């Protein structure tokens, strides 16, 4: 920060992440609109508040322990080393607040740590936090109209501040053990966010059960139509927009990637491997196009599945969208959405799983398929610029997809949800579910409206008597 060029580089990076965070906020606006649109009229306020309030609970949880977990857990611990020291990320660190980068008061912090993290801590923290909200929101859509809000927020904090953060430490950091040993590559989080959240959602749904009336006695499903398809459409467009910001947030905008002492500046992925904003813009849009076309085709023009297909297309191609050719991204997007759609209906009929928004399919199945496909297409690519790391392989990616979907997604959530069910705090009582989760609010509203109408009538009568 002592000359204009270095100050420009640092403040540009700070500003870059700040912009991505603002863009990613749209993902959450989109999720709220989309979920409320899918929910029935009698449940819309509950659905909105359940999702909206995951913002504060995950934010506080991520400040208190999530951010530290990301740095501390990169070696496992116990796989490639012990707990990593990250004094800038504990909530009582002076660098977790307004700081100008001067001499640190704490002995645990070096001058280099302080200079870097005084500027970057808030924006990096926020970028990861917005990913945490997304992980929570993915669960939220699947479980609408029957889960208690407190139970959902406990699960959202568990996934958004603990399990997803651990999987990011393992497979989505430049020194994570999965990158070192398995050559795991997942540049835009097909597995680390979507695969994991889809696996988590599936575990919750198994314990939660379907909405009342969702399946007939013979086991065939009934369709519960969205109460407002326009809200769903606008929500999905906002998610697409925010997802673009997410892609930018996954990059490091400017870094010297020359390893021979020279200088060559480029954007990099989270693994510090080179890519460009131009490349990921090509691939983002082509995978969106592939997903939309396949969603439209496979569902015979259904609006809900067409939009979901667009999202599924991006999610499937995300693992390798730093390196793919745009046409590869297009076909991978198509493949993922076809498989995700077919798997969704097969699982729904076979296991009577009521996934209200197809979250397990679009995030879980598409994300996991995307991780595996990247293993074949990027077979032999170096996973890192650091010497000694494993290269990308199909078996490394298959193993990684299984760790994300089952190991850190399905299994931990299955246990926590079972505990919530055992304590009797998981599901809304049947009578309330049938009447609607907004039943009490609706009754209050109609009482208030009738009071106002009564008061207006009395006022009109009083005025007419006075005028007579």
């Amino acid at each position, binding site marked *: 920060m002592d000359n204009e060029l270095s100050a420009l580089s640092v403040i540009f990076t700070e500003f870059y992440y700040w912009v991505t965070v603002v863009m990613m906020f749209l993902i959450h606006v989109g999720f709220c609109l989309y979920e409320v649109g899918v929910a029935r009229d009698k449940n819309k306020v509950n659905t909105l508040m359940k999702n909206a309030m995951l913002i504060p609970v995950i934010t506080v949880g991520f400040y208190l322990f999530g951010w530290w977990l990301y740095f501390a857990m990169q070696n496992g611990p116990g796989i490639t080393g012990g707990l990593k020291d990250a004094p800038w990320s504990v909530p009582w660190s002076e660098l977790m607040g*307004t700081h100008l980068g001067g001499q640190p008061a704490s002995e645990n912090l070096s001058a280099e740590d302080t200079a870097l993290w005084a500027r970057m801590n808030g924006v990096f923290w926020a970028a990861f936090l917005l990913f945490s909200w997304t992980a929570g929101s993915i669960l939220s859509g699947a479980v609408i109209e029957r889960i208690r809000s407190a139970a959902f927020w406990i699960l959202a904090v568990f996934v958004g501040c603990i399990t997803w953060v651990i999987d990011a430490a393992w497979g989505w950091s430049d020194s994570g053990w999965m990158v070192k040993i398995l050559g795991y590559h997942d540049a835009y989080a097909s597995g680390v966010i979507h695969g994991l959240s889809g696996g988590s959602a599936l575990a919750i749904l198994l314990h939660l059960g379907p909405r009342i009336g969702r399946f007939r006695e013979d086991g065939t499903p009934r369709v519960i139509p969205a109460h407002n398809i326009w809200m769903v459409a606008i929500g999905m467009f906002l998610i697409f927009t925010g997802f673009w910001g997410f892609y930018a947030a996954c990059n490091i905008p400017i870094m010297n990637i020359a390893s021979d002492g020279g200088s060559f500046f480029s954007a990099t992925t989270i693994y510090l491997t080179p890519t460009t904003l131009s490349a990921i813009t090509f691939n983002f849009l082509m995978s969106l196009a592939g997903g939309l076309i396949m969603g439209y085709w496979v569902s015979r023009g259904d609006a809900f599945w067409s939009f979901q297909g667009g999202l599924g297309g991006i999610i499937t191609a995300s693992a390798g969208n730093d390196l793919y050719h745009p046409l590869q991204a297009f076909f991978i997007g198509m493949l993922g959405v076809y498989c995700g759609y077919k798997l969704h209906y097969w699982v729904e009929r076979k296991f009577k799983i009521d996934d209200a928004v197809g979250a397990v399919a679009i995030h879980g199945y598409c994300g996991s398929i995307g991780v595996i496909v990247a293993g074949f297409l990027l077979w032999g690519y170096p996973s890192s610029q650091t010497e000694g790391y494993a290269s990308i392989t199909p078996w490394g990616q298959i193993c990684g997809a299984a760790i994300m979907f089952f190991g850190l997604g399905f299994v931990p959530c299955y246990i926590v949800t079972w505990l919530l069910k055992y304590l009797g705090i998981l599901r809304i009582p049947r009578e309330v579910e049938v009447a609607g989760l907004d039943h009490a609010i609706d009754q209050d509203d109609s009482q208030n409206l009738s009071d106002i109408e009564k008061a207006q009538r009395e006022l009109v009568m009083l005025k007419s008597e006075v005028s007579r």
Partner: protein
Amino acid sequence: MTGTGSFENWPADPSSLGPLYPFGGYELLMTICCLLSFVGFFVWKLYLERHKYEAERTALRVEEAPARIERE
């Protein structure tokens, strides 16, 4: 008592400045207060939901009772 920690005037050389927030040195205490508020919010919500849904369930049973008697 003031909140300023390491400075009382903006210095000529800002690179010497560290934390700008007031009451530096109380970060651990603030963290504990935040943790208690965080846990307290969940405890409050769990308590509220238990009573709310119990009351709603009872009210709904009362509302449905005449219709049920008529059916029977």
